[in-house]
């Protein structure tokens, strides 16, 4: 069995207002907390925030860049959105292979400026996935 890489390749995305609008159109999620600054200012968030699932798209990009198409078969992603993504942030997704669970990566999406987490979780790959090879 080939060795899985210790880390997942970074995938990046800068969050600007047109991007949030485009993602709202894509998901049909027009929650004003993502789109209406006046509404968002009255919430605990204080300002508009990006859709959480946008960050999941970055995790999938990181996975494909690192391990190719075979990694998606029965992949099990479990993430928590630990901090809201705000306008102007550049997100970077990545992952680190767990030492005690050889088919599971700790994954994250972070603000590239200060490396603080926006999303954290795990990505478990299927048995008997091998690096880049079809099971």
């Amino acid at each position, binding site marked *: 069995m080939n060795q899985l890489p210790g880390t997942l390749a970074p995938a990046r*995305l800068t969050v600007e207002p047109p*991007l949030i609008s*485009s*993602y709202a*159109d*894509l*998901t*049909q*999620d027009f*929650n*004003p*907390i993502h789109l209406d600054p006046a*509404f968002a200012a009255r*919430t605990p*968030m204080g300002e508009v*925030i990006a859709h*959480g*699932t*946008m960050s*999941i*798209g*970055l995790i*999938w*990009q990181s*996975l*494909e*860049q690192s391990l*190719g*198409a075979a*990694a*998606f*078969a*029965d*992949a*099990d*992603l*479990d*993430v*928590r*959105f630990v901090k*809201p993504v705000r306008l102007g942030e550049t997100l970077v997704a990545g992952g680190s292979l767990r030492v005690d669970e050889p088919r599971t990566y700790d994954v994250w999406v972070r603000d590239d400026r200060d490396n603080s987490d926006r999303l954290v979780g795990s990505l478990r790959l299927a048995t008997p996935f091998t690096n880049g090879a079809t099971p």
Partner: protein
Amino acid sequence: MKAQAITFADFEPGRELGAHVEAYAPALATSWQRIFGRTAAGGMAEGASLAVVLAMRAYLKVVSPRPPGNIQARQRFQMHGVPHTGEAIRSEVRCIDKQIKRERLYVDLQVQGTGEDGRVLYTAVMRLVWAH
């Protein structure tokens, strides 16, 4: 559902809320590429991302109207098979749990997507913080 916004009290764990059928249309892929770039167009990341998008669209269609200000706290996404372009996907939405923790209202919804040939494509569990 009802004309007034669905509240936390309306959710019944175990209850199926409805289903939504939608095609993985080429226009969705084009929209995705505008956001994430064309470098990986047609790849598995695109298909997996759009599976997440289709799960979201199904939830938003079935569980409506919603109060403004809901946010998602957690998501588990089990990818059983990536959908094909043009394939119609049936997504069933079910409430599987609800809890109040530290005065926050948490609702767990499961969305399961099935492809045209009956194969299960994904099972998503979204933990949402319901606004009221």
